[in-house]
Each structure stands twice: as structure tokens, then as C-alpha cells.
């Protein structure tokens, strides 16, 4: 008898979406859900129009506006941004696609709204013209970012040509120390495997510390898989996943729910399945992290200091020296001594309700340090509404934060929310690249708890540091 090959979660989900497999070709992969936004889609729709092609499955396509939208009426969109939003509205109308535009209650960052609506479910394939599509892997879906030509391809055919990526397991076992959040877990992982540690692979996050995370925490972890270079990140679905999905707007109902559950329970990686690469981390090694450089692997713990490039391994020195020049930091400086000009609480990484609860609890009854500009940009209008029902907006406003409408905002600096040249920001977003939050801006990646404490202290701080 031949023993059946044990398969990983990623392999199972991939294999069930293969429409066509032939020698010398990548797989033709079916896409269960295509998320669309205003920035990476106009050229794709124009391509369809020129070729007289239709959208094959408008019912599996959802559009919103997030990257470019203003988050306050005080700073309206410029003409060129307006034109892009109008194009999104016209394209959705013309091709029969559901759109949640600015001003609707369901509008928000595409990776925040899809799970909220119950459109993100285990075992699916999900793509979007946005690299943080990896977020949806938290549900045990294969979800990844694509370019605009591929957006056009999916619109026209509901499929993609793609070679099955390799597999990688990142196992985090043990209990997370107090004050260590999902953001710190993923920053800790990236600091160990590097920004190209996952290239060509799908990472499966495993272990008791991962299973102990809420769905929102799991989304934060999977969201930044792309920052490790991975094609996607995944977490096996379990009771936490099912409880999150159940009863959401687009979740299966009644007998369909039971059938779906039976299917989802069979998805996790089988014992004995092999990964191409395995990394193990003990949760007790993790701390709250702050990035000091210009890529997400350039981090230290908040108790640490700005590193001396000469003390790093040779391959990293030149990039570290360049990063420190850009960031205007001196080796040896304690992270807590670094003063910030701005604090951004937002993005598809960390702008869900739990993030806002944690941060609002830190700022409760306190005041943002004079001179610090502090922004809360909820991930979606539904998150915003819920936060307001819970009174979180009052806590933020009373402390001196601006309370904004939903959007990508200062994560990527496409809308008017940008840093000025040389401004330094503690940000709950995902990328500290040069100029990411505005030309010349300096970004430090942190968790919502550290961002909130930093806004109060005026320099990097933990909630426990506040008097």
C-alpha cells in the first residue's frame, strides 16, 4: 500500500482551484473573489473596453475606494484623484460590479471590509491589485496581490496563470509576553527571516501563539507576509475563524453553513506534511518592536538602541548606513529617546476595532504631547461606526487625536494625509520605505499600543512607561 502524500493547507487550497494543469505551463487558477480599488484598476477596465471584453463574474468581484480618498472634508481630493474615483464609479456601473464608494456605510480599506462582510472565508482564493491582499490568508484562504495586467486578466476570465509557490512554516509556540501584540509577532518574524525570507513561498503561521490570536490579530500577521517577500501568508481555520465568519452578511446560512464547516475542518495541514522551509520562534523571545530603518526587517525592541551598522553582518551594513542617514538617526541612541512629530493609527495592518480599543485604552484620560500631530483613521466606515458606538472616538478626541473617515490615508501618502519632509512618525502601518508616508517623511513601524503611548509621551514609549 502506498501512503497518501500528506498535504499542507496551502497545497490543499491551491489544488482545489486548479482549472487546468499541463506540463510546461503554470497552473490556471480559479479566483473565488476579486477585490478591486480605484488606484490599480482604471487601466485594466480600459483594456477590457478596448478589446470589447466583459467582466466574466461581476458577482465574484467587489470594488471600493480606499487608497486615494480624503479622510476629512477639510482636505478634499485634488482633481486628478477625483478623476480616478470617478473612473472607478463609471467602471463599476458599466461592468456591473458592486461598488462601495466614498460616503457609503460599507466603504473602507478593501482588506478590512471584505472580512467584515463575510466575503473572506476559509479555503478560498482571493486576489486584488494590492500587495496586502495577503491579509485574507488569516482565514485559511490563499490570497495575494497582483498587478494591473493581472487585474484585467481576472476581470475577463476569473482566472490567473500562476505556478504553485513553495511552502514555508513559521511556528510560534508559547505564550506572548505582556504588551506583545500581533504586530510585534510579525515584526519579530520579519526581523528574523528578513524582507526576502519568504520570496516565492506561501508562509503558514503555526503554533500555539498564533492559534491564541484573535481573527483580527491573525489578519495583522498575515497582512505583513508580503513584507517578508512571501507570495501569501496563511493560518489554518479553526473555531476562532468559524465564530468570526458565522452570521456575517455573505456567510453561508443554514444547511450551507454546515456543509461549509465540514469542508473547512478538513483544510488544516496534515501531520507529517513537509514544508520547503521551517522556522521556529518561541513566543517568549518576542518584545514590542520599533523599526529604525527603511525596510520592515530593520527593527529593534523598544528597549533597544539604534544599531551601529558596523556591528551588523557585512551584507547588511551599507543598507543600514544609508537607512540611518535617511532616518537621521545616530547609532547608540535609545529608541525611547527618539522624539516624533506625528502618530498614525490606521492602515489595513492595524485599524480594526480591536486595534482601536487597545489604543483608546492607552490614551484614556491623557493628552497627546504638545506639538505631536496624532491621527486615527479607522479601517472602514463600519469600524468607525462601531468605535463610535463604544465611545472610543471620544477617548481619542479628548486626548487630542484627529478622528477621521476610513481609508488608506497616511499609510501610503496618496491622499492629503502625508508627512512633511523630515517629519518623523510612529505608525501602525506596514512599510517604513523611504518617502512612503510623504516625500522625505520618516516612518517607524509600531503596534497600536506603542503608537498610542508614543503619542502621549512624545517619544517612543510603552503604555507602562506613562505616568
Amino acid at each position, binding site marked *: 500500500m502506498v501512503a497518501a502524500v500528506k498535504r499542507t493547507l496551502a497545497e490543499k487550497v491551491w489544488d482545489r482551484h486548479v482549472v487546468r494543469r499541463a506540463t510546461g*505551463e503554470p497552473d490556471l487558477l*480559479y479566483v473565488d*473573489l476579486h477585490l478591486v480599488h480605484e488606484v*490599480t484598476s482604471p487601466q485594466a477596465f480600459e483594456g477590457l473596453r478596448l478589446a470589447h471584453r466583459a467582466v466574466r463574474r461581476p458577482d465574484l*468581484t467587489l470594488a471600493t475606494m480606499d487608497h486615494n480618498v480624503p479622510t476629512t472634508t477639510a482636505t478634499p481630493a485634488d482633481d486628478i*484623484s477625483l478623476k480616478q474615483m470617478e473612473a472607478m464609479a463609471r467602471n463599476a456601473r458599466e461592468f456591473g460590479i458592486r461598488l462601495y464608494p466614498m460616503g457609503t456605510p460599507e466603504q473602507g480599506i478593501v482588506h478590512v471590509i471584505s472580512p467584515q462582510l463575510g466575503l473572506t472565508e476559509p479555503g478560498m482564493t482571493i486576489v486584488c491589485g494590492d500587495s496586502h491582499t495577503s491579509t485574507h490568508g488569516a482565514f485559511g484562504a490563499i490570497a495575494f496581490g497582483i498587478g494591473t495586467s493581472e487585474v484585467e486578466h481576472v476581470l475577463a476570465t476569473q482566472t490567473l496563470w500562476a505556478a504553485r509557490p513553495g511552502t514555508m512554516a513559521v511556528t510560534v509556540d508559547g505564550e506572548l509576553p505582556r504588551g506583545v501584540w500581533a504586530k510585534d509577532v510579525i515584526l519579530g518574524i520579519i526581523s528574523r527571516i528578513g524582507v526576502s525570507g519568504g520570496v516565492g513561498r506561501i508562509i503558514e503561521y503555526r503554533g500555539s501563539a498564533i492559534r491564541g490570536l484573535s481573527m483580527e490579530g491573525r489578519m495583522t500577521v498575515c497582512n505583513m507576509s508580503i513584507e517578508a517577500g512571501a507570495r501569501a501568508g496563511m493560518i489554518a481555520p479553526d473555531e476562532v475563524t468559524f465564530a468570526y465568519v458565522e452570521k456575517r452578511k455573505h456567510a*453561508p446560512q443554514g444547511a450551507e453553513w454546515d456543509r461549509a464547516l465540514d469542508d473547512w475542518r478538513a483544510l488544516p495541514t496534515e501531520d507529517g506534511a513537509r514544508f520547503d522551509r521551517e522556522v521556529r520562534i518561541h513566543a517568549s523571545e518576542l518584545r514590542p518592536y520599533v523599526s529604525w530603518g527603511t525596510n520592515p526587517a530593520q527593527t529593534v525592541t523598544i528597549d533597544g538602541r539604534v544599531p551601529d551598522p558596523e556591528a551588523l553582518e557585512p551584507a547588511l551594513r551599507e543598507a543600514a548606513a544609508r537607512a540611518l542617514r535617511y532616518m537621521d538617526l545616530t547609532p547608540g541612541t535609545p529608541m525611547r529617546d527618539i522624539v516624533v512629530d506625528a502618530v498614525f493609527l490606521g492602515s489595513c495592518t492595524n485599524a480594526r476595532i480591536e486595534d482601536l480599543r487597545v489604543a483608546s485604552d492607552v490614551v484614556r484620560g491623557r493628552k497627546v504631547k504638545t506639538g505631536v500631530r496624532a491621527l486615527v483613521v479607522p479601517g472602514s466606515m463600519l469600524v468607525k461606526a462601531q468605535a463610535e458606538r463604544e465611545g472610543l472616538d471620544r477617548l481619542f478626541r479628548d486626548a487630542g487625536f484627529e478622528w477621521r473617515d476610513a481609508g488608506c490615508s497616511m499609510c501610503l501618502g496618496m491622499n492629503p494625509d502625508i508627512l512633511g519632509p523630515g517629519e518623523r512618525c510612529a505608525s501602525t502601518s506596514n512599510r517604513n520605505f523611504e518617502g512612503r508616508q510623504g516625500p522625505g517623511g520618516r516612518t517607524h513601524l509600531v503596534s497600536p499600543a506603542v503608537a498610542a503611548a508614543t503619542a502621549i509621551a512624545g517619544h517612543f514609549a510603552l503604555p507602562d512607561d506613562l505616568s
Partner: protein
Amino acid sequence: MRTVRRVTGRALPLDRANVDTDQIIPAHWLKRVERTGYGAGLFEAWRRDPAFVMNDPRYAGARVLIAGVNFGSGSSREHAVWALDEVGFRAVIAPRLADIFRANCLKSGIVPVELEPEAVTKLLELALRDPRTEITIDVERRTVEAPGVHASFALDDHARARLLEGLDDIAVTLTHTDEITTYEARRATWLPSLRG
């Protein structure tokens, strides 16, 4: 898409690792709804530094970009490839390219070339020492040739055929419509839909 059989030309040596697409084309350029008009945004911030290699007139007209590992990381923006294309680049060589960037290159007829780090280092040195050095990338043979360098790179038959023939990807896929329809008939009934 245009056909690409062979790319021959001078090379721009960009000896940096992990160059992200925000550096290749900053986000404010992404407000445009057209596929063209991105050339002026290529490496916009770095080009303000007179010492940036792209400002060296000896590299003007380079058709090959040689970069460090993980070039094109970060955002999925295909605008990065469009910007490179507009400035005249037809191939990018690195020890490893970011996944989405690599896929985007293939869609625009830019040849993504991943070589052993030693070979990339050698090419970088050649281009730095003599900017007139010509590099040839042969798509059909999947090889890179330069003085003293003979290397081959991986490119699956499917991707190679598309570059060589300049095929419209969607038209090719639509020849498999029956297979897609068959697949759709057996999709699970509980999968979410926005119908209605």
C-alpha cells in the same frame, strides 16, 4: 504585447538590495488613470541626488537594469514596470526579483532575469568599470552574455513563448473557456457571491 527575442544594450548598475516599488515610482504618480506618463517618476526621489547612478550621463540609454536581491519588493503597483519601460529598460537582472514585480515584468515585455549572486556581481562590476559594456539577454536560449559572463536563467516555457510571440494573455486564456466553465459548475455552493 510587443515581442521580445533578445535585449542588447548598456546596463545601469544599481547596486542596492531590496529596492521597493515606492522608490521605483512613488505613490503620488499612481493617481493617473493612464498606462503611460510614468517615466519622469522613475526613481524620482533618488534622482534628485546628483550622485545617483542614473544621473551619470554615461549610462543614458541603458536597456538593462542590474540590481541587488529582492528588487521590486513591496507594493504590487505595475506602474513600476511601466516607468522602467518608458525610460527604455527592457530587462532587469538581479539575484532575486520580488514575486509580483516579476509577474508584472512579463506582462509588459520586460525580461525578468534571476542569476546567481556571483554572476550579478560580475555584471555589476563590468557595468561600473566600463559603462559602454553591452549585455545581451537571449529569451529563446534563456542566456545572458557579456564579456567574460555566460549565464543562463530560468523562465518557464509558457512565459518564454509569450515573450517571444508577444501574445495577448487574455486571448490565450479565453481559448480555455470550456475548462473554466466546467470548473465553475463544480464550485462549492456555499462560496460567497455578490449576486442580488
